[in-house]
Structures are given as C-alpha cells and as structure tokens.
C-alpha cells in the first residue's frame, strides 16, 4: 500500500467472468508492473475497488496468493457501486486499495480436517483459501466444501467446482434452496445440508461465510455437532469506507472489522459486544 492509504493503485481489467446472473468476477492487474510483482496478500484479505465517478466499495480478494498473474474480485450486483462495476469491460481502468485486513490463519489449520461452508457470494473469500490449500494439499487433512445458493444458476465458480468434484482429494457438496428438475445434488438450506453431512469436530476446523441469516444457523448447527468456538472461523461483512480503521463505521465495540478482521474465530466473536 502506498504512503497515502486513500490513494488507489491504477489497475486494468484483464478479464470479466459472468459467474451467475448477478455475480461477476473481475481479474485485474496493477498498471505499475513493479507494484504488481510486489503485491503480497493472504487468503481472506479484502480490498477496495474504485470505479471513479461511481465510488468505491469493499470486496474479499477471491484469488489466492499462489496465483500471481492477477488479482480477482467477485462482485454481487446489489447497489450503486456494484451495478456500475458490473458494466466494466476488459481494458477498463479501476482503482485498487489492497490488501486490507487480516487473513485466514492457514498455518494454524495445517494437519487438520477442513470444512468450508459457503453461501451465495460468501464463496468469494473461501475460494482463495480453498485454492491455497489445494496448492499445498499435503499440509491439510480431509478437505470438504459445502456450498449453497438459491438455485443452480446462482452458484458461482461452477466451472471450477466441476473440476473440484472430479478430484479425488476433495469432497464437494452442493445444495440449492428449492428443488428443480434433474438437480443431482442436495436440496435445502445450507445449515440443513451441514446437519445432514454431520462432519466430525475431531481435529477439524470449520470456516463459514455467507449471508447473515445463513451464518447464524450454520453456527448453531456447528455447535450442535460439538464444534468448539475456537474451531470455527468466519469472515464478516460491514459497510466500510476508509478500510484503514479511521472513518468509524465498521466497529463492533472497540474492534474495527476493516483492520482487526474481517476474519474472526467464533471464540473471538463471543468475547465481543453483540452488535453484528
């Protein structure tokens, strides 16, 4: 990050991937080649993406540090800035302030069974962690991914997910909210699918990200499955502006999600004030 934390680095859109009707992934490269080469980030960290004129918004970095040629953000079209971002084409210029915040402590997870639980756009911060773990496969035990969305068309990264399903060293479960003809996978909400999968908490960690309602019930399910608070990681979403702990809006008590998070263990969240 440059000396001025508000000054984005100029980047060019290399590729736009339409993941779902309302999620697009943007692969970017910083125009300053030396800055791009020097870019260091970790799975779970976030960045601020600017489309000047429309504004700036915060997104999880959805590409892993082990894939250096681009920086990827997956954007759900929901408000003004995200709608403007969805109009980006390859060659367009954006501003990037990244990386921001903390990351998933993948070193602490070594040797453990990994259960990733994602919902909708919540798959975006989990993707770099999963890819990082697959790139360092021997460091981890059993890896399971449970991913759900409203309908089959709302599942992001499907091209990749099909490849993951074909691999023998990763177990993938997909679920959709309501039944559709010829859907070969699970039907039902993510917490229900998790309950059905019933992963063992023995030497395991669970990492979850998704809409607030999903997270709430996933946490309840994990508790029921006897996961301890220290075995559960989540990454929080808050409205952010500065991203550097100054502008004052993403706090939970004296913690700022932009710099103290976005990754927290359930044990940390339990010790924090109740204002999610």
């Amino acid at each position, binding site marked *: 990050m440059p000396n001025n934390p508000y000054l984005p680095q100029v980047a060019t859109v290399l590729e736009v991937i339409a993941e779902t009707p309302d999620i697009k992934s943007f692969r970017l490269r910083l125009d300053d080649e030396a800055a791009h080469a020097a870019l260091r980030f970790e799975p779970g960290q976030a960045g601020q993406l600017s489309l000047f004129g429309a504004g700036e918004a915060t997104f999880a970095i959805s590409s892993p540090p082990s894939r250096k040629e681009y920086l990827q953000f997956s954007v759900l079209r929901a408000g003004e800035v995200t709608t403007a971002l969805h109009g980006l084409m390859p060659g367009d210029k954006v501003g990037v302030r990244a990386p921001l915040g903390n990351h998933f402590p993948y070193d602490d997870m070594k040797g453990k069974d990994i259960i990733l639980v994602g919902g909708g756009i919540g798959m975006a911060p989990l993707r770099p962690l999963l890819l990082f773990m697959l790139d360092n496969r021997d460091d981890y035990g059993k890896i399971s991914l449970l991913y759900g969305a409203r309908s089959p068309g709302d599942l992001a990264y499907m091209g990749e997910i099909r490849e993951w399903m074909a691999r023998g060293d990763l177990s993938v479960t997909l679920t959709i909210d309501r039944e559709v003809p010829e859907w070969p996978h699970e039907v039902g909400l993510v917490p229900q699918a998790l309950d059905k999968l019933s992963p063992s908490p023995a030497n395991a960690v669970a990492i979850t990200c998704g809409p607030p309602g999903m997270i709430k019930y996933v946490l309840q399910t994990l508790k029921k499955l006897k996961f301890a608070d220290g075995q559960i990681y989540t990454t929080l979403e808050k409205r952010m*502006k500065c991203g550097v702990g100054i502008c004052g809006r993403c706090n939970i008590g*004296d913690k700022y999600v932009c710099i103290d998070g976005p990754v927290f263990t359930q044990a940390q969240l339990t010790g924090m004030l109740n204002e999610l």
Partner: protein
Amino acid sequence: MDAKFISRGQLPEWLRSLAARFAVLAPARAGSSVIYRPVDPEAPPRQPELAVKPTESAKRALFPLSEALLTFVKNQPDGKPGLELRETPPPRPCLVFGLPSCDARGFLVFDPVYAGSGTAGKFQDNYYLRRREQAVLIVKTCPRPLSTCFCNWVGGGPASTEGADVLATELKDGLVLEALTGKGARVLDSALLRPAADEQLTAAAQSRAASEAAMPPPVDISGCARALRGKFDSAGFWQGHSAGCLSCGACTCLCPTCYCFDLSDEERGSRGVRLRSWDSCMLPLFTQETGGHNPRAAKAARLRNRISHKFSFYPDLHPSLPGQDGHIACCGCGRCIRSCPSAVDIRRIVTEALGTAAEGAE
C-alpha cells in the same frame, strides 16, 4: 515563553496581518449562531466575536466539512480508457484565533486515530497530520461556563492549555497572549503586539482563576468505560435515552471530537474528485449495508455506539496513564446537549450508566 498584550482596537489588524501567512479562522456572528469564519486580509478589519461561545466546534480547521483527497481524469485524449489520479496538494497552514479550550482539546482525540496509533492498522492520514503539524491554535480563556459545560469532568478546564499554542485571556481593553509553543511564540512576534506588563499578567492570572472558580465542581466519572460496557445489552436503558432522538446528526456535526467521515465521488465529464466529508453515526445510512443488513438500524443502537465510543471504546483503545481510565473521547463542550432538539443529555447517560445520576447534571 513570551507574553504579549494586544489592544482590542489593534486585534483585527493583527488577525489581518496573520492572514498573509495563514488561513486564519476566527469566531464571527452568523445570524443567531457564532461560527468560525475565514479572516479576509482584503476586507475591512472586523472584531472577532469573543463574547459568546462558538455554536460549532473548531474542527473544520483541521478536518474540513468536505475536502478533495484526490482528483481523477478518466479518459485519455484519444478516448481510450485511462485513469490518472492526483493527490490534493497540501493546504496553507491554518491558524484559529479565539477557540475555547475544549475545542483545542478535541483535536487530542483526533490525533492518535489519524496517526494510526492504538489500532491494528497503523495507517497514517497525512491530510490531517500535515494540517495538524502546521496549525497554530490560539485558545481563549472561557470567561464563564454555560449550564451545559462539563469540561472539568473529562480533564479540561476553562483555561486548559492542552493542545494550544497560545493562551489568550481577555482584559477590559485587550488581550494578554501567552505563548505555549515555538509556533505560538512565532505568531506573537509582531510590531502590533507589545510585551505584557506585570499588572496585565497578574490581571490575566486572576481572570483565569475566576473562570476556574466559576466552574461547578466536576462529577467523578472514573469507571465509565466499564459501566457503559455493562450497559451495552440493556435495551431499555438505550431506548429510554434515545426516545426523543430525531436522528438529525446535530450532535456529531457540532462535536469537537466526532471524526467519522464518508468518501464519495463527484464528476463532470471524465474528470472529478474523491471527497472526504463529515459523516454521522447517528444517521441510519451510516452502517447500512448494500445487502440490506444494518447493524445499527435502531436509533437506540446508534446512540449507544456514539456514547460508548466516546466513554468506553475509545478509552479502551487509547489508554492514558497506567492504572487510569483511558483518554475519554469527549471534551465536555456541551454543544450536543445545547443544540439537541430533543434534550438528549450525554452527561445524564454517562452518570446513569455509572449509577451516580443523582449527583449528576440537573
């Protein structure tokens, strides 16, 4: 350090002479309010308004209501996509004349946040820090407290010199100006000022003592950080105190220590600016997420955050001396009480949280 005297008649001329070197702000009447106005060296000399405490705080001197952090140009001359970003050049050094001590102490709350200390981020905001480093603050001793003043509850006082470069004290025919810093001494180096006589210094000291004596004794609010943490989940407590709140944001706007901001873009054609503007945690959109969720949708949650931030979260992040409570992010100016359309009283909230309301304000 130097002590000078300036007659009331020469004061406007001195301020005009300072305006050649600084962007000078001085209190001026604007209808029924007193606000900080730029001193125009070209305009006829005007006496600053010193009889009434300014309605607003002086924070705009170092934290403008709205400022361009960056300018951008989007398209190259050939029409291809481009993006050129430029940082706004540093502004002129600023001098504030006649701010009350609470306003100067307010900047002590900004300092660590904008210097990135006390948090995990360690990011420095040089837009603020540059202004801060160059600014000269001429604090004026408060002649008498208003019923809403409580600076002595939070470590201040009517003649506190914390954060100030010069302390000015009014006498009948002019002001005694005492330099507190090197920057302060340099602005007192003017042919319009003469050395203060011993009797003027004595009169100024007496005036300050009288101001201190006029303050009602402070209420002890030690332990407020903990007490407010204990009240966090008391929905009734916060609903009760916020019942009248109109979510107008007057409190945060007038507050010398409220430092939250928004970032937004304005453009015309392919050029524009990225603005940093004051924002308010009392407004519902402050924390409204695009996905629909809002962690502080209720005004009770917003008031809870504002008060807890000042008296609990901030002191926890910015401890003062070992064994003592941290730095309270309130300077006791009382403007939020005075200007609240529905009489929300920050003192009452803190004392009730502490269980000492009976001896608290009113």
